[in-house]
């Protein structure tokens, strides 16, 4: 197990990389803050799970992916989509439920994805995407492709049966997959100690003879190094791994939760001091990689980018209600058959059979 303090050698870090990582974390932070605001203005519906504070765990890991690698995430996925490279405007449009959204407005906040970029989604049933991600790793192996899967999920997912079955399958079948626990220390209001008989979650790997490792998830370089290393082993040696990145969510579980009943103000404050973005900024300026004015410039750039994403997404069209039945099934014959169904009537019943309109 690598220790939290073991920041990887700085040789890894050139200016371009530093800027890219910093910029992406800043973009996500800004995007999430404005998302919260858009939610309170009722432009976004449903659940809205922010990952403010967890940017290093997301960005560090995703930055370590190579072309052809595949990614899965939980519903707390706004940052994931951005880190993968999806256009902020397409992500915001999805949150607004617009036709130009990444999922054409069908998925919303919890189900962002970008199959072109091999981001296979944001998923809403805790733990359930682990077996699915495992199947994608199986497909890579079946096709003898040189890539691997990164599957991210929360600490709460570790207690689901799906976690166990997925890790065992990955282990016994030697699949190229890295399971990343983004341990923000709570599943809604339940602490890891309360939900896990083994609160050192990384130790669960041993149950599958798998490599397990815990790192400081607020250290973007540590996350990036560990992910790159484990994904490398997965790609080359077809050996899966479990990576636990310790982080914290500053906000509540969702926008509806103040996040204060189950944790103390001191605890939150202590984590704010470890803000991954501030910390990485400091790291970079100390090492002369980024000047303060460059940092300031990034912040104003991302603010502008998010603003224009919002503006553009606001102007986009909602899906046409007449397309309601599209995409239930794939092949076109079926699509046609189902598109003529009358909304609300039993399946397969045709609108034109009735004289009255709905």
């Amino acid at each position, binding site marked *: 197990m690598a220790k939290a303090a073991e920041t990887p050698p700085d040789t890894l870090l050139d200016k371009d990389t530093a800027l890219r990582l910093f910029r992406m974390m800043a973009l996500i932070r800004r995007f999430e803050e404005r998302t919260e605001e858009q939610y309170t203005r009722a432009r976004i519906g449903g659940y809205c799970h922010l990952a403010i504070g967890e940017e290093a765990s997301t960005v560090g890991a995703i930055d370590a992916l190579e072309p052809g690698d595949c990614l899965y995430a939980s519903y707390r996925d706004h940052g994931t989509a951005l880190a993968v490279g999806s256009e902020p405007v397409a992500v915001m449009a999805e949150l607004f439920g617009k036709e130009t959204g990444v999922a054409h407005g069908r998925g919303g906040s919890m189900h962002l994805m970008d199959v072109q970029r091999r981001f296979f989604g944001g998923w809403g049933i805790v733990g359930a995407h682990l077996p699915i991600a495992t199947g994608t790793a199986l497909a890579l192996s079946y096709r003898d492709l040189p890539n691997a899967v990164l599957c991210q999920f929360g600490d709460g*997912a570790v207690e689901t049966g799906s976690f166990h079955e997925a890790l065992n399958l990955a282990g016994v079948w030697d699949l190229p997959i890295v399971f990343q626990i983004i341990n923000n220390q709570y599943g809604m209001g339940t602490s890891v100690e309360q939900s896990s008989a083994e609160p050192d979650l990384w130790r669960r790997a041993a149950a599958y003879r798998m490599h397990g490792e815990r790192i400081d998830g607020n250290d973007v370089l540590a996350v990036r190094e560990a992910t790159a290393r484990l994904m490398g082993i997965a790609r080359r040696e077809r050996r899966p791994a479990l990576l636990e990145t310790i982080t914290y969510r500053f906000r509540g579980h969702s926008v509806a939760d103040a996040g204060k009943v189950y944790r103390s103000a001191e605890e939150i404050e202590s984590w704010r001091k470890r803000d991954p973005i501030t910390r990485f900024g400091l790291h970079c300026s100390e090492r002369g990689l980024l000047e303060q004015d460059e940092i300031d410039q990034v912040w104003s750039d991302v603010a502008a980018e998010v603003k224009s994403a919002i503006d553009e997404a606001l102007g986009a069209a909602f899906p046409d209600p007449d397309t309601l039945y599209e995409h239930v099934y794939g092949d076109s014959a079926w699509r046609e058959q189902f598109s003529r169904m009358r909304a609300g009537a039993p399946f397969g019943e045709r609108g034109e059979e009735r004289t009255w309109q709905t």
Partner: protein
Amino acid sequence: MADLTYREALRRALDDELARDPDVFLMGEEIGRFEGSYKVTAGLWQKYGPERVRETPISEEGFVGAGIGAAMMGLRPVVEIMTINFILVAMDQVINHAAKIRYMFGGAVGVPMVIRTPGGAGAQLTAQHSQSLEAWFAGCPGIKVVAPASVADAYGMLKTAIRDDDPVLFCENLVMYNVTGTMPDDPDYTVPLGRAAVVREGSDLTLVAHSYTVQRALRVADTMSRDGIEIEVVDLRSLRPLDAETVAESVRKTSRALIAEEGWSTYGVGAELAARIHRLCFDDLDAPVERVGGAEVPMPYSKPLELAALPLESKIEAAARGLLAESGIA
């Protein structure tokens, strides 16, 4: 008579039963400190402590199973599944176990357990969080399935369910929680399971619904009443057993039946009910039974699509008018 919310009625029923019977305990995710994802259990953890209001990890299969094993020992667990969508990971425990134990073991042991869980849609929660799956459970011998649609029933039926000797799936609805209504003052008030209720009288058409859709049905009846059309609304209340006789009685009077539900119509609650009504009222019907349900799509996120998918009042009304037209009333 006091006015309160559906949520508060449920909370009181839990509180009363916890106070009354030491064998009753609650179990579920976030039901303690967090007060329940939808706040139904607010204050009970503080009042009864962590043993009787037991917070669980995200292990529905595990803790539904644990509820069964505790119930087999004579305890009366009331298990909360945060929403009915998540019960699918515990489906084996409910169907292959809770429902079969008494029979499979020749009557030697029963499972007096309640599973409380809200279903329903309408808040843009998308495909994995907007389902109404109760019909599937209602098709399974060995469990009872109820779905109260009023504040008084929420209170009275939850108490009855907790006292019942068999597993009861107690279906709540996300949109109902904030609905207010009146509740009898009688602290011993209970409502038997398995009986439908005529909640509005009318002569022109019988509109049958359960859970939140009853509220929609009542609004449709009010609207159409302004045009002189009197709709009789039947609240099913229980899906297993199904009180088809109360429905049939109404249909014999009105000669027309429309069933509305939030779930998918095909193989849904309305399918069984339509089959029954036709059978029981074959000579009384002026037109075939009509159904309105949620559009048969995984629920989309975008508001205009979601609205197009929901069985809104406008769609129920259109179906009612269509049915009346079909049977000669314009």
